[in-house]
């Protein structure tokens, strides 16, 4: 099933096509903007495997790889069930992909990856990355990530994303070749902008604030639920002791024996039922976690807006100052304090030729400055427009998804109650026979 080691670009679509025709098909697919990739192909992260190898510093390490399978959507309808194309990827490659997307589309709320390390665990779950349950949940999370990206109107048509799904070898190099790392904003720059921006768009400020609140409240909820789950586990498991003691007790009784013994079995069943319950609980936690991380992505867009706005403000301020300098030079009036002004007072005025030269330079700078402002303004407007569209899209998605999550949480509670009713009714019947 695994296509590992294959040098060929995995193809989608009709396998009867000639290579060149397939190439064309690929190009067409990628070029068409706004096409949802998921309409064309099925994507899944089918498996996870442990590998060992040498890392960058030539030391042995164990890591997990995930099998990405892709298959054309209309394959089933052709009657054949072709083997899906597949390749293996590590978590770090997913991270690389996402970083690339973040830098390349800073105006989009980029879907988050599942957590790198298990957090908000309760005692039964281990925080070990190699734990099979954790790996399984991560597999599901990675698949979810790919599906989210593939169904995003803008992200789904990205080439790098496409080759991530289809090109096993050389993908990393391709990503680095885009030079995206150079485009990344330094943290310092971003932080600076956040503090100094004067007029950010109110909507973005509100969104950022919302992102903060969302992150805070979901963290709190996850913590509370983890602790409650831990306690609930204890309650159920202690009931298992009833089973043991009832069994022992039934041995010394005559008439009561049977009733006690069978009641004991139900107590054991009750104690065991908590495992399933808490597994479903984990699934709910995962849904919350996705939006916890989404909150971060949302804040990233807002921070980028602040940066963009700040750069516009800087350019505008710079232009204003240059214009002012020109005016001063032209009128000879020094309005503002400047070192130039001071030195000229102290050391005498410049010669007319010097002034002429300066004025000329200023004019050039002012022209350049105007261009810069125009550019930055356009950038800003463009950013605000695109970002706001995506934020609206995100809001709708979030409302829908979280509502579904709450509903599935309620369903889980209902299932737990029904199990409880059944077990205790059974136990009651057994007790009646005592």
């Amino acid at each position: 099933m695994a296509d590992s080691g294959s040098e060929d670009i995995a193809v989608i679509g009709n396998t009867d096509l000639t290579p060149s025709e397939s190439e064309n098909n690929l190009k067409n697919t990628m070029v068409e903007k706004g096409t949802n990739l998921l309409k064309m192909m099925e994507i899944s992260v089918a498996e996870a495997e442990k590998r060992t190898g040498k890392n960058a510093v030539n030391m042995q390490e164990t890591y997990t790889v995930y099998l990405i399978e892709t298959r054309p959507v209309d394959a089933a309808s052709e009657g054949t069930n072709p083997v899906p194309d597949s390749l293996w990827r590590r978590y770090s490659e997913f991270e690389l992909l996402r970083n690339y997307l973040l830098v390349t589309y800073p105006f989009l709320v980029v879907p988050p990856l599942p957590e790198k390390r298990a957090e908000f665990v309760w005692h039964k779950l281990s925080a070990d990355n190699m734990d099979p349950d954790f790996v399984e949940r991560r597999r599901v999370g990675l698949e979810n990530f790919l599906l989210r990206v593939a169904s995003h109107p803008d992200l789904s048509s990205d080439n790098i994303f496409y080759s991530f799904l289809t090109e096993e070898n050389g993908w990393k190099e391709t990503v680095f070749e885009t030079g995206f790392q150079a485009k990344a904003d330094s943290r310092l720059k971003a932080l600076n902008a956040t503090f100094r921006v004067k007029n950010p768009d109110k909507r973005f400020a509100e969104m950022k604030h919302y992102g903060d609140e969302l992150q805070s409240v979901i963290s709190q909820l996850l913590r509370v639920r983890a602790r409650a789950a831990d306690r609930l586990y204890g309650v159920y498991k202690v009931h298992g002791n009833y089973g043991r003691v009832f069994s022992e007790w039934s041995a010394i009784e005559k008439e009561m024996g049977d009733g006690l013994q069978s009641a004991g079995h139900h107590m054991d069943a009750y104690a065991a039922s908590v495992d399933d319950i808490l597994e479903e609980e984990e699934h709910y936690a995962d849904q919350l976690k996705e939006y916890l991380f989404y909150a971060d992505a949302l804040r990233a867009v807002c921070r980028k807006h602040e940066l963009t706005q700040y750069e516009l403000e800087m350019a505008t301020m710079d232009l204003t100052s240059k214009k002012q300098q020109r005016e001063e030079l032209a009128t000879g009036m020094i309005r503002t304090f400047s070192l130039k002004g001071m030195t000229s007072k102290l050391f005498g005025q410049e010669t007319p030729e010097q002034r002429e030269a300066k004025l000329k330079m200023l004019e050039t700078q002012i022209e350049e400055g105007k261009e810069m402002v125009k550019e930055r303004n356009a950038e800003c407007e463009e950013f605000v427009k695109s970002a706001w569209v995506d934020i609206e899209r995100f809001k709708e998605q979030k409302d829908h998804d979280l509502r579904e999550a709450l509903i599935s949480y309620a369903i889980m509670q209902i299932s737990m109650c029904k199990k409880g009713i059944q077990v205790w009714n059974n136990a009651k019947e057994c007790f009646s026979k005592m």
Partner: protein
Amino acid sequence: MSRSVVDNTVSSGNSSVAIPTDISGQILDLDEDDDLEVFSKDTSTTLTDGSSFNASMQTSPASMINQYKLEEDADTKDIFVTVDNPESHVTAIETYITYRVETKTTRSEFDSCEFEVRRRYQDFLWLKGRLEEAHPTLIVHPLPEKFVMKGMVERFNEDFIETRRRALHKFLNKIAEHPIFSSSEDFKIFLTAGTGELTSHKKQGPGFLSRMGETVKAVAAAVRGVRNRPQEFTDMQEYAEAFSQKISSLDKITQRIIREQKEYLEELKECGPTYTLWSQSEEELAEPLKNVAGCEDRCYKETEEQVKHLNDHLIPVLHEYVLCADTLKAVLRRRDNIQVVFEGKAEALATKAADRDAMRDELDKAENRLEWANNALKSDWIRWQKVMRSDLRSAFIDTAERNVSYYEKCLAVWESFMQSQRTDAEGNGKVDSS
């Protein structure tokens, strides 16, 4: 028929100090069966004639009403005792609680149909002691303990008083339901006598010295050890041991469950408020989130009730039977002591030459006493087992029913949430496929 609450009589301590002169003679004849007569006037005439247990029951008119029955039907119950209305009494010397004891009966040996008296814990202790002395091999239901060692439970704490009241109520009812105890003169006096009357009656009982004598006898007997214990009593001993272990385990397990539930409640308390907090940042999601918060709060309340019920209903019963197990062991020990006395006399007769006639007489009495004790124990053991089975069965059924009810209530809570989401969806024109 006294109804007044007497609150300024100083009750004496646990042991009556005065030794009436008529008893002093009895100190020398502690092995005589006549001493039984003093303690239980009604039935002692039937019990001391040494004939078989059941036959003797039919001779006394009083005992005919309380035929030894294996099953007490509610229909034939002719005495109803209630313990309620605890009141605090403060005197110069001490502070103590009295309880109202109300009796309603159609029994002819009672002068009236209704009685109301006030009794304190000491009085109950006295009654129990009297019954045990009169019938050393019958099983007296345990009293609640003097004070709870675990935790810092104050004697006058409301919960403690209520728990004690319930246990005292059960104690008297168990006595009333017992074929032999319920016709005890001491019991009648306990239910009907005014406080002063009771005090003077208490003083008539065997004095401190005679009780000391009994204890010394018991210790001596224990040291000597029984030689030919019939197998059935050894079986009972083993049963009592095993039963004691099992019921203690159940008590501990139940207490552990309560502890875990309380810790779960601590965490669950935070859930509702966290969802409410979240709802404040949301628009579309605000309503479902508030709804979920409401559900969590309601489930919290139900869980609280559930824990309380477990504490108030199952724990006391388990606790009673832990004490019962101790009673069983004590009864078996007392029976053993009676056998030891008999064996000692038989040996004495075999070895000593002088006074053979008097010794033979004594031996006969000891043998009768032993036979009567054995029969009494055997019958009461069967009765006790039936009562135990009924009590524990009821308690477990009650617990199971309560658990079912708890889960049913929580189920209703979450189903109402689901319902609200469905109507919401229909209202918004969205149709959820869930």
